[in-house]
Each structure stands twice: as structure tokens, then as C-alpha cells.
């Protein structure tokens, strides 16, 4: 019997090629989508699970209140970790890390800028699973000025040489000895490093700073005992804080608590300030794309159901005969289920092929490194089997029950009113497909619109043709005039300025005590050290007062400028001439410096548009200016950059020029959103494509079923346009209904997404309408082929052999 099922299934499959193709291809695309997203989701969940102790590692975070501002951050102070190992028996070990800024690293004649250097305690090799390939000391990171490099880095600097024992020079000043080579960290790791420097080095550089409890600049990881409950440990933190730094905190007016983040949930569930790893994901996207995967698969299943029931008439006779010959209904149901599972398995095979082709494309869009080689083969095969059978049953059960319910007498008399164009279920499924499609189209539009809005929004300064040089180095920072003189002589350079902060790439905050307030009542405010050219070079507009001036010598020691938001926050009507105090950067915490406000600038965006503009103050300075800002003319920018490079070579021969353009930096910030937009775009195309394949199938059967009706109507005088209208009306109604349902869904979802941005677009209705019209146009185009053919057909033929 089973063999008979198979034979019938295969013959049906090969006899109705278009139908089979639509069914199998549709399901395959749906499955490929689903598999792709599953791979991605699996990858997202795999982050940091490769560590043997993954379930026992926690990140120490602070929940603090500093100068009225609440800060939740994954940072901590350096003495805390070792003290916890000491105080709490359940804390077995600790690792502290500290990221280094981008610096040049040199070995002999090889110099590279390294972005991913981390200071780490030697315990990083005990707590985490970063296997050492070779080492020259038992504990390679135990001594100051030792460095462990990854395999890749070793190859880059040393080629075939043995790096162990060699000396590398970091930032042109300090020599480190290579004491170990570590495997490259996997991509699904919170840590992404090329080099690990010993944390001990930091002690050697400034022991006092490292022993300071009120200095939250480090990342601390704790390894807990197997039976430890981290919630219980958290409960012990308040008294720990009181014991070790209670008095100091009170003196500074800082409220502080610690909390722990399980390492395995950092990647997807952490959204804290001062996060430095770029490998932070977002659980919302995981949910979102899982949802999309499911929807695309559902659309494909709907197609299957639709097409199979539409073709019911063709199978009715077979059902009737089988029943007459004694088949029970259950036999027929299993026959049809076997058939749909066969379709499903074929689709899965095709899906694998699609997956293999599409994965590189997905990787380039999503910035991921997914591949089939990294999956666990048995579990992957099992998953595929489950999906195939699941989809087969899901898509096959309705048709199976539907077909097997035919009454043999009616069917054999040819009296079956074939599941023509009016089946309610079919309409519902088509509506379902178009709800998904319209939502995705609208989503794509709005995501792109938001990205565009962010890219083009006036930022309050001019980000075009603004080149920033970083890593000026100690010597250059001490002689700013040298840079100004040398570089401003290059023809393409219009203006040049020096400052501490580049807009768009991070901020730095300091306590700000307005006049008339006590020192412990300060406000935390972003600050920028700037020379007198900074504001005009960046194109920030002065609203009141004046800019810093090189002619007024006292500016460097006592002038400041604030932005409008700061004015508003402080509630000053006449800010010019007001004074404030800040901690003196050159001295201990207890000394204060007073500055007088000489000007107010209009608001500008330091941070990407998902953050609101905050209060900012500028300090005129000639030191701490680590960045040079060059406003270039639009003519021959690359030529200008080449000249800059050669000039730079003259000034600092042993260090390459490290620079970026501000507009690029801003664009980078929207990369996540852009990826999202691209993915939404591709998925909406897929959803529509699959939906249209189904629509095409249905419309061909509908047209076939209605041939007689069309013939009669034509004989009675209907014109081709009349007929086309008749055939399109139904689809139009379905799409109109889908639109009405899709609109609130899309509105709700997009509105939630837009909450991520402080500056956002409106959800104007016209774009929803546009999305609906696109869906309608595509659907019309899809059915037009069949409809036009049906409408043009000679009625004589359809009526002849009735």
C-alpha cells in the first residue's frame, strides 16, 4: 500500500510540473529562510558558551548614582575583584581587563595600528577558555610588560619566527616581551582581542591609581563555585561596599551598588552604558527575525494548502474510486500526508542548496560568519528532518482531510463543485500572506526612511570633508603650533583645529559645579577640550557671546563655552559671564578650577541620533588635545590626504598616520540599522515572492475553473476588460482586507522600533498606503498573466464540449 502511495505521489509530482514546481520551490525558499535564521539565532545564543566555565562566570557591574545621574554600567574598580575572592568563599577566581585605545605596535620594521589590545590578569587563562598554544613562562601574564598574542597576530609580526621572548614596542614608548601565543578567540566571543598585555603592567605604571577604590575604569569577571547562587552573592554586596569604601563614597556623594551579569546572557541581554565590546547583540532582533522566519515558512505552507485544495477537483475522481474500492478515510488521509511529506522532503533538499548559495550573501549583509561547516551535523540533520516532517504535516493535513472527505457518489457522477475560487479558507490564507508582505514592505520603507533621516539630519555641525587625525602622540600634543603650521600649508586644508573629542565617536564626562552651588552638588556633563579653532572648524554655530580667541591669552586658563541645552538645564537667563568649577585635571581630586562662560553654542549632536543631545561644555586648552581636525576643500580629497600622509611622515617618521572622516564615523553608527533595513528588504522580497508564487498557482486554477463562466459572459457580450475586472476584483478585495489588518500591526511594531531613537520620523499614513499599493500592483501583475489568457481565450472552445 505504501508503495502505491509513493507511486501515485511521484506520478502526480511529475505530471503537474508547474504545480509541483510552485509547491516545492515555495516551500524550499521558506525552509531556506527558516534555516538561515535558525543558524543565525543559534550563533547569537552560542556567544561565550565555548568557555568550559561559561555557566559560572559573571561580570561585575555597577549601579551608581553620581551627581544626580544614574549610571548602570559593566565597569568596576580594580581592587574589587581580588577583594571579593578574599572575602567571599564562593568567588573562586577573578579576571580584570581594561581596553587599550588604538595604538601603533612595532616589531623591528613592522608597524601596525592595533585596535584590540586588552590588559588582562593572568587568570584569564584559568577562568575563560582561551587555550595557549605555547608559552615561555608558567603564568605568561603574571609579570609587568609581558604580552600574549594570538596566532594571527604572531603571523603578522613574526612570520615564521618564534615570537616567544621577542620584544614588541607599544605606542612608541614601552617594550613588552612576548610570553605566550594564544588561539584566535572565536567570533562568537565577547572578547575580541589581538593581544593581551599583563594587567600587572598597569600596577607598574601607577600603583596608586590601581589601588584606588573610587575609580571605575575596569571590567571584572568572577568565577563562582559550582554550587554558588549569584543572587545570594549579590545580596552580600552592600556590606562589602560599606566595608571597603563606605566613607569615601559618602564624601564624594556617590551612591553605589554592584550587580552581576551571567556571562552567557551578556551578548543578548545586556544594554548598559560604557559597553566597550562591539560584540553586543540584541535579543529584540533575535525575536524579530525568528518571527519573520516563522512567517515566511507559514506563507509557504499556506501556498501548499491553497494549491492542493484548489487542485482538489483533479484528485476527486481518484478519491471517489479508492473509496468505492474499499479505502477507508484514514487510509486516504495517510496517503495524502505521505504525499505532502514527500513534497516537503524534496523542498528541504532544495532548501539546502539555496542555503549553501545564499549564506555568503546573508553573511555580507548581516556581517555574520555563519556557515554550514560549523554546525553540529547530527543535530542539524535531525532539525531538518523535524522541519520537513513538521511542514509536511502542517501543510498537508488540511488538504488531506479535505480531499478524503469527498463523497464517492457525487464525485463519480462528476457532480463535484470543484473548490473553485471562492473557498473561504483560501481567502483567509491569501489574506494572511499579504498581511505579512505588506507589514514587511512598510517596515522596509520606514527603516530606510529613519536611516536616511538620521544620515541627513542637521547635526548642528558640518560633518562633510572633516578629517580627524588621532594618536598625535605626546611630542606633538606638546607642540600644537607645529601641527597647525605644517599641515595648514597643504593646499587642500581649509581650516585646522585641535581638540579632545571627535563628534560621533564617544564622549567624556566630568563633574560641573555651577556658581552658587556646593562642590558635592555638581552635575555630570560632557566636556570637550578645544583650541580656539575647534568651534569654527567643525562648523558649530555661536548663539551668544564669542568663541575662544588666540588673542586673549587668559582664555586658555579661564574661558569656557556651553551649549544651549546646558543653558536650559542650568536655568540661566544670561549665561555669559557666569562661572563654574570643575575638578582640576592636572591635580588631585580635591582641587578645583574655576572657569568663566564667554559664549554659548547652538546645540549639536555629539552622539548618534538614538541619544538625545545632552549638556556640553568646552574648555579652552592647549594640552590634552589628542585629535587634529582638518576641514578639507571638496577638490581632490584623496590628493590632499596623500599630501597629509607625506607631511605626517616628515613630522613623525616612525608612526603611520591614523585618521578617519567624521561622516564615515557617523554612518558607521547606523550600520546596525542599515543591516536591519537590508534584511527586512530581502525578507519582504522573499515573502512577496513566495506569496506571489502561490497567487499565481491559485489564479491559474481559478481561471481554469471559471473558463466556462468566462465563456458564457463573453458570449453574452462581456469585453476583455470586463473579464479582467471580474477576475481581479477578488484579489483586490483580499488585498484591501489584508491592508486594513496589516496597518495596525505594522504601525505598532514600527512605533516600538522607533522608540529606540531619540530623534525619529513620523509614521505617515501615505507610506502605508504606498506599501499596500505595491503589494496590490505585484499581486495584479502576478494574476494578470492567467487572467489575460483566460479573458482572451475563444469562448467557443470552452463551451463547445460541455
Amino acid at each position, binding site marked *: 500500500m505504501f508503495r502505491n502511495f509513493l507511486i501515485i505521489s511521484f506520478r502526480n509530482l511529475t505530471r503537474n510540473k508547474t504545480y509541483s514546481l510552485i509547491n516545492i520551490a515555495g516551500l524550499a525558499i521558506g525552509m531556506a529562510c527558516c534555516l538561515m535564521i535558525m543558524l543565525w539565532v543559534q550563533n547569537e545564543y552560542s556567544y561565550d558558551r565555548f568557555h568550559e566555565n561559561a555557566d559560572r562566570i559573571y561580570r561585575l557591574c555597577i549601579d551608581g548614582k553620581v551627581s544626580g545621574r544614574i549610571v548602570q554600567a559593566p565597569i568596576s574598580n580594580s581592587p574589587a575583584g581580588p577583594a571579593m575572592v578574599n572575602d567571599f568563599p564562593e568567588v573562586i577566581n577573578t579576571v580584570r581587563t581594561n581596553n587599550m585605545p588604538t595604538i601603533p605596535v612595532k616589531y623591528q620594521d613592522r608597524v601596525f595600528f592595533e585596535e584590540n589590545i586588552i590588559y588582562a590578569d593572568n587568570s584569564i587563562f584559568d577562568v575563560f577558555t582561551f587555550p595557549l598554544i605555547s608559552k615561555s613562562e608558567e603564568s605568561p601574564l603574571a609579570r609587568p610588560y609581558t604580552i600574549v598574542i594570538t596566532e594571527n597576530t604572531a603571523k603578522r609580526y613574526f612570520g615564521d619566527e618564534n615570537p616567544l621572548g621577542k620584544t614588541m614596542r607599544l605606542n612608541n614608548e614601552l617594550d613588552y616581551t612576548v610570553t605566550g601565543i594564544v588561539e584566535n578567540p572565536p567570533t562568537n566571543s565577547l572578547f575580541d582581542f589581538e593581544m593581551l598585555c599583563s594587567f600587572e603592567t598597569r600596577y607598574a605604571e601607577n600603583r596608586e591609581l590601581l589601588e584606588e577604590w573610587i575609580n571605575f575604569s575596569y571590567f571584572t569577571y568572577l568565577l563562582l563555585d559550582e554550587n554558588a547562587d549569584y543572587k545570594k552573592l549579590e545580596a552580600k554586596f552592600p556590606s562589602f561596599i560599606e566595608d571597603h569604601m563606605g566613607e569615601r563614597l559618602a564624601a564624594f556623594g556617590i551612591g553605589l551598588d554592584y550587580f552581576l551579569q551571567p556571562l552567557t546572557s551578556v551578548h543578548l541581554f545586556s544594554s548598559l552604558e560604557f559597553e566597550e565590546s562591539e560584540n553586543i547583540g540584541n535579543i529584540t532582533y533575535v525575536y524579530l527575525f525568528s518571527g519573520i522566519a516563522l512567517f515566511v515558512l507559514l506563507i509557504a505552507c499556506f501556498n501548499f494548502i491553497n494549491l492542493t485544495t484548489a487542485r482538489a477537483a483533479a484528485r476527486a475522481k481518484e478519491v471517489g474510486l479508492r473509496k468505492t474500492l474499499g479505502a477507508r478515510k484514514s487510509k486516504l488521509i495517510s496517503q495524502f500526508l505521505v504525499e505532502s511529506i514527500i513534497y516537503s522532503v524534496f523542498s528541504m533538499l532544495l532548501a539546502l542548496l539555496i542555503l549553501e548559495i545564499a549564506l555568503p550573501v546573508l553573511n555580507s549583509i548581516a556581517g555574520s560568519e555563519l556557515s554550514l561547516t560549523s554546525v553540529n551535523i547530527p543535530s542539524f540533520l535531525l532539525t531538518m528532518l523535524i522541519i520537513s516532517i513538521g511542514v509536511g504535516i502542517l501543510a498537508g493535513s488540511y488538504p488531506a482531510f479535505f480531499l478524503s472527505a469527498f463523497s464517492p457518489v457525487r464525485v463519480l457522477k462528476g457532480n463535484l*463543485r470543484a473548490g473553485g475560487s*471562492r473557498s473561504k479558507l483560501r481567502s483567509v490564507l491569501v489574506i494572511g500572506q499579504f498581511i505579512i508582505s505588506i507589514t514587511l514592505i512598510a517596515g522596509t520603507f520606514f527603516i530606510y526612511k529613519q536611516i536616511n533621516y538620521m544620515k541627513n539630519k542637521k547635526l548642528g555641525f558640518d560633518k562633510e570633508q572633516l578629517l580627524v587625525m588621532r594618536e598625535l602622540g605626546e611630542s606633538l600634543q606638546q607642540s600644537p603650533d607645529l601641527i597647525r603650521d605644517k599641515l595648514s600649508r597643504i593646499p587642500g586644508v581649509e581650516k585646522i583645529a585641535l581638540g579632545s573629542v571627535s563628534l560621533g565617536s564617544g564622549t567624556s564626562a566630568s563633574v560641573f559645579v555651577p556658581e552658587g552651588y556646593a562642590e558635592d552638588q555638581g552635575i555630570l556633563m560632557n566636556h570637550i577640550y578645544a583650541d580656539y579653532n575647534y568651534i569654527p572648524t567643525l562648523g558649530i554655530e555661536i548663539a551668544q557671546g564669542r568663541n575662544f580667541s588666540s588673542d586673549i591669552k587668559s582664555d586658555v586658563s579661564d574661558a569656557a563655552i556651553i551649549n544651549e541645552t546646558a543653558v536650559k538645564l542650568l536655568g540661566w537667563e544670561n549665561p555669559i559671564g557666569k562661572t563654574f568649577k570643575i575638578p582640576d585635571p592636572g591635580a588631585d581630586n580635591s582641587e578645583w578650577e574655576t572657569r568663566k562662560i564667554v559664549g554659548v553654542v547652538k546645540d549639536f549632536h555629539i552622539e548618534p541620533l538614538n541619544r538625545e543631545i545632552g549638556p556640553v561644555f568646552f574648555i579652552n586648552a592647549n594640552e590634552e588635545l589628542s585629535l587634529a581636525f582638518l576641514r578639507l576643500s571638496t577638490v581632490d580629497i584623496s590628493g590632499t590626504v596623500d599630501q597629509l600622509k607625506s607631511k605626517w611622515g616628515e613630522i613623525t617618521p616612525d608612526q603611520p598616520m591614523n585618521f578617519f572622516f567624521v561622516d564615515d564615523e557617523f554612518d558607521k553608527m547606523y550600520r546596525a540599522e542599515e543591516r536591519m533595513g537590508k534584511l527586512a528588504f530581502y525578507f519582504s522580497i522573499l515573502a512577496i515572492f513566495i506569496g506571489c508564487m502561490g497567487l499565481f498557482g491559485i489564479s491559474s486554477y481559478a481561471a481554469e475553473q471559471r473558463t*466556462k*463562466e468566462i*465563456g*458564457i*459572459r*463573453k*458570449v*453574452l*457580450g*462581456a*469585453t*476583455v476588460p*470586463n473579464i479582467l475586472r471580474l477576475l481581479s476584483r477578488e484579489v483586490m478585495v483580499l488585498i484591501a482586507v489584508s491592508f486594513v489588518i496589516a496597518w495596525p500591526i505594522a504601525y505598532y511594531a514600527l512605533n516600538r522600533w522607533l522608540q529606540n531613537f531619540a530623534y525619529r520620523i513620523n509614521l505617515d499614513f501615505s507610506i502605508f498606503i504606498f506599501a499596500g499599493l505595491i503589494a496590490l500592483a505585484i499581486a495584479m501583475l502576478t494574476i494578470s498573466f492567467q487572467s489575460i489568457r483566460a479573458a*482572451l481565450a*475563444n*469562448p*467557443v472552445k470552452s*463551451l*463547445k464540449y*460541455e
Partner: protein
Amino acid sequence: MISVKNLKKIYTTEEVETTALNNINLEISEGEFVAVMGPSGCGKSTLLNLLGLLDNPTEGEYFIFDEEVSKYSERKRANIRKGTIGFVFQSFNLIDELTVFENIELPLLYLGIPKSERKKRVDEVLEKTQITARKKHFPQQLSGGQQQRVAVARAVIANPKVILADEPTGNLDSKHGDEVMQLLSSLNEAGTTIVMVTHSPTYAEYGNRTVHLFDGHVVTENIKEQFHV
């Protein structure tokens, strides 16, 4: 009113060329009732399709009200067809999803006649064909004779000059067949030209002229009597 000269129709399939009609010459005057007879496959239905402007001849001329229509496009043919020609088929060809009333109303819809006028005319025709009681029924709920009466009603609703009937009694028993023939006869008496294909000599008697076709040729024409005016 209808005049065909040297009409020829060839059907071409992938392998075979079939000459369905060859050199047909036929004149039909207004008010005539013409029966077309002949064995299966002699081209009766093809002739009717050509006369009904459902199809174009391969060769020859076709004048309807002195207008040469044999080369007309589908659209032009549909326009002439709409108000001039009514059809009755052997298999009734009613639309299953429409009620009796809606089926009959259909030609008027395509003529763009306003709703109130449509209702009036459909009611009149329902009356005339004695199916008023069934106007809300669907075709499957009717007997064959009733269905064919609906089809006739639909054929005459637009007051066509000519009704083309393709074996209107072929699917009916004699009682219902008689009913339909009476109906056609009375329409003819009221002035409608009728061309009817039939196998039944008895029903052919209803006409005032019989055209015999054989293998695509007109073989004989029997004129029973001069048609009444």
C-alpha cells in the same frame, strides 16, 4: 439580414488541418426560422459560431445588416453581438453562482442598462417564459427544461434581432423539449429571427426552412413555406 458568401472554416491543430465548413452560401431574411440539420461533425455548430460572431471564418464574407464583419476584431464582434444576437445552448450554459434573475440580467449589464430598467425587463421576460416563481433559485435547483427556459429568457432579454440556438432540446426529454420549442416559436412569431441547429426532424418542422449540412457543405435547402410577416 444575414448573408454569407463562400464561407470557409479550417481548424488547425498541431498535426491535422480540419475543414469544418467549405463554401457555404446562405441568405437569411429578417423574421425567418431556419433549422440547420446534419449528422454529427458536419459543421453545424461551427456555422452557428460563425453566424454568432463567436469566431472568425478562415475565408469568405459575412454580411450582417449589410455590414461586412468577417474580419472584425474580437472587440468589434463583441459590440455587435451584445445587442443583436442571442444564444441558446444545448447545455444551457448558465452561471452556477448566479441566480435565475441574475443570469437573465447579465446581457443587460454588459449593455450598461440602468438598474430599474433591468429589473422591469427581466420581470417581463420571466413572465413570458413562465419562470417568475423560480427567479431566486440557482441553476442546479431547476429541472433541465426550466434551465433551458432561463437560457432562452437570457437570450431574448436584450431584444436581439436574431437568436442562435444550438440543439436547444438536445439535453431535454420530449415534454420539456416541446415547451422550449413552443417558446422559440412564439418568439419567432413576435418577429425574432431564429437559426436553430437540431438533430430532430420533428423540431426542424417548427422552422420555415431547413438547411442540411454534410461534411461542411450545404447539400439541400427545403423551403416549407414563405415565412409569415
